[in-house]
């Protein structure tokens, strides 16, 4: 492979990794802070993608769809937390697993009822519908770069919120010590409701941003779910930094697995995960 294509493949891997980060960050927040495993996370990615489809048809523009979709996702997350997840904080993971599995079944079938079983394309906003030429034959879609940019901005914003704000302090405290949060007089119920809604919202935003790239079709959510799990495992539960590094690693592994080990490319990311676990059982940035 010559150096130009090597460079392009690295770009491919990073770009895919950034998209994964968007999905996995919400997952790792909910895991890390609330100790809740949410199998339905991928379903909210799917809902985001379908919202992008319907709302762009409605408003004619993806940014407008995003503006409408974010509050909807927040409300969905808030409702789900308040009605269902709240009963699970004192239960074991088995119950969390099953309850959120029930949600997968319901949300998948609901998607089929509302939107049908066709595949749909979501148009790229016309002002981003350009390509940058990279070689004689190959060019890079600007929208993909723009999405990468948005993911980077979100990653930095999350970092700043968590490190620099009072909200972030509560989040960090909740992550490390639930009792301490109570001592600090923080309303843990509100904190959890907020974190869960934010997690769902991140998944939905990822779905909306990805919709023009990924297209929209049934089953789109389950595929990203397991790969996001792998990201969280590699990065370490609850660590945004870990999710970021893990996403990029997975993105690169996916790309170079396809190029170098085509026969086993499906298993490459899992092999990477196994290697990381051998080295660090709690992930790259996980606490012991």
């Amino acid at each position, binding site marked *: 492979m010559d150096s130009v294509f090597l460079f392009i493949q690295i770009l491919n891997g990073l770009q895919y990794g950034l998209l994964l980060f968007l999905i996995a960050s919400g997952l790792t927040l909910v895991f890390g802070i609330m100790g809740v495993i949410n199998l339905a996370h991928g379903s909210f990615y799917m809902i985001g993608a379908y919202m992008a489809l319907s709302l762009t048809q409605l408003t004619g523009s993806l940014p407008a769809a995003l503006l409408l979709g974010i509050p909807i996702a927040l409300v969905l997350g808030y409702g789900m937390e308040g009605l269902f997840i709240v009963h699970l904080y004192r239960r074991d993971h088995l119950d969390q697993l099953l309850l959120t599995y029930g949600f997968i079944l319901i949300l998948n079938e609901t998607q089929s009822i509302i939107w049908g079983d066709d595949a749909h*394309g979501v148009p790229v906003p016309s002002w981003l519908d350009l*390509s940058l030429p990279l070689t004689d034959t190959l060019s890079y879609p600007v929208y993909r770069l723009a999405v990468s940019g948005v993911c980077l901005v979100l990653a930095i914003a999350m970092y700043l919120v968590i490190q620099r704000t009072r909200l972030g302090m509560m989040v960090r405290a909740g992550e490390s010590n639930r009792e301490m949060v109570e001592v600090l007089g923080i309303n843990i119920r509100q904190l959890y409701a907020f974190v869960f809604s934010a997690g769902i919202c991140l998944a939905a935003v990822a779905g909306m941003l990805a919709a023009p790239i990924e297209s929209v079709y049934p089953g789109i959510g389950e595929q990203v779910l397991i790969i996001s799990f792998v990201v969280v495992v590699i990065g370490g539960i609850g660590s945004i930094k870990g999710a970021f590094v893990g996403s990029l690693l997975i993105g690169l592994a996916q790309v170079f697995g396809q190029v170098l080990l085509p026969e086993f490319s499906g298993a490459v990311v899992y092999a990477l995960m196994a290697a990381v676990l051998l080295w660090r059982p709690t992930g790259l940035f996980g606490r012991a």
Partner: protein
Amino acid sequence: MRYEKKRSASRRTVIKGLGAGLGLAAAASFPAPFVRAQSAPVKVGILLPYSGTYAKLGDAITNAMMLNIAENGDTLGGRPVEYIKLDSEAAPPKATENTNKLILSDKVDFLVGPVHSGVAMGMAKIAREEGVITIVPNAGADQITGPLCAPNVFRTSFTNWQPSFPMGKVLLDKGLKNVALCYWNYGAGKQSAQGFIDGFVPNGGTIVKEIGVPFPEVEFQAALTEIAAANPDAVYVFFAGGGAVKFVKDYAAAGLKDSIPLYGSGFLTEGVTQAQGAAAEGIQTTLHYADTLDNPENKAFRAAYKEKFGAEADVYAVQGYDTGTLMRIGMDAVGGDMEAKNDLIAAMDQADFASPRGPFKLSAAHNPVQNFYLREVKNGVNEVISVAYEGLADPAKGCTMG
């Protein structure tokens, strides 16, 4: 193969009580004791996906098949028809259980299904053992009419090998000798790729790059970069559904569409051109059907389908429709007498009729011998350009029948 059946009138009630008590009951309907008479309904068991990714295909096949039989006065061989639908969920682990249910519990006369090749394998296993007449209206796994072929197993769709084979010659005729292959690295994708290779390489073509993308992964950037690096004369691909939408769009967005022409098995642009939009324009594919085929059967079929279901028919609907025709041919030949099973099978075996897809007959392995059309997407529609291969039969490697 066992064709005789045991039936006992009181059995079901016994089971019902016990089964309900144990929670074992397949809560199927328990009709009045079966009356052996020509007026008793023919039972058609349908095992198709009605939920999940393939639900759309399941619905199209079911609708069209029922439409066909409705056109025959809702009868087969003069007998009324009873449908027993079961959701296959496209889940292979449940395939044998569901097939057992239809064959052993519901005692269906015909078994129709499935869409998914893994389910088809499980279904074929049981169907071969039980000898029930089975018609596969979609799943393209080569094995079903290859090593696993059986007198009672028919297919009205295609083998995965079939749609790709004619494209080899098409590309060579255009002077495209160096081709890159890209496909989902699973059963259908690999068999499809093999079909292309069989039609291309022996005639002087060269595969310059072969890229298997893990199924059902839809992140294609790496593959596209590989293609660009190989810089072939053309690219031949196998993708379907959401993956097809994404591949075609990504291919265009990467700027490859203008420099390296894209060809594919017909599923690349089947039922998804709306979603693909402008990116699909000009893509040529080969398939055994096109919406725009100009023959009277197709026009009549499409009109009837649209009127009844309010939607455009597609290739899956045609396969379902022909499933109906095949059953009609068999049942008409024996006057609705399921006991004359050998005659019924013989009649189906000899079926030769005008389908919406064109002339339809069966190979010795019970797979359609059919035309493959070269199509091009124009304004979001797969327009027929030419017949790429007339009356193509699958080589049916490993089939010992006929």
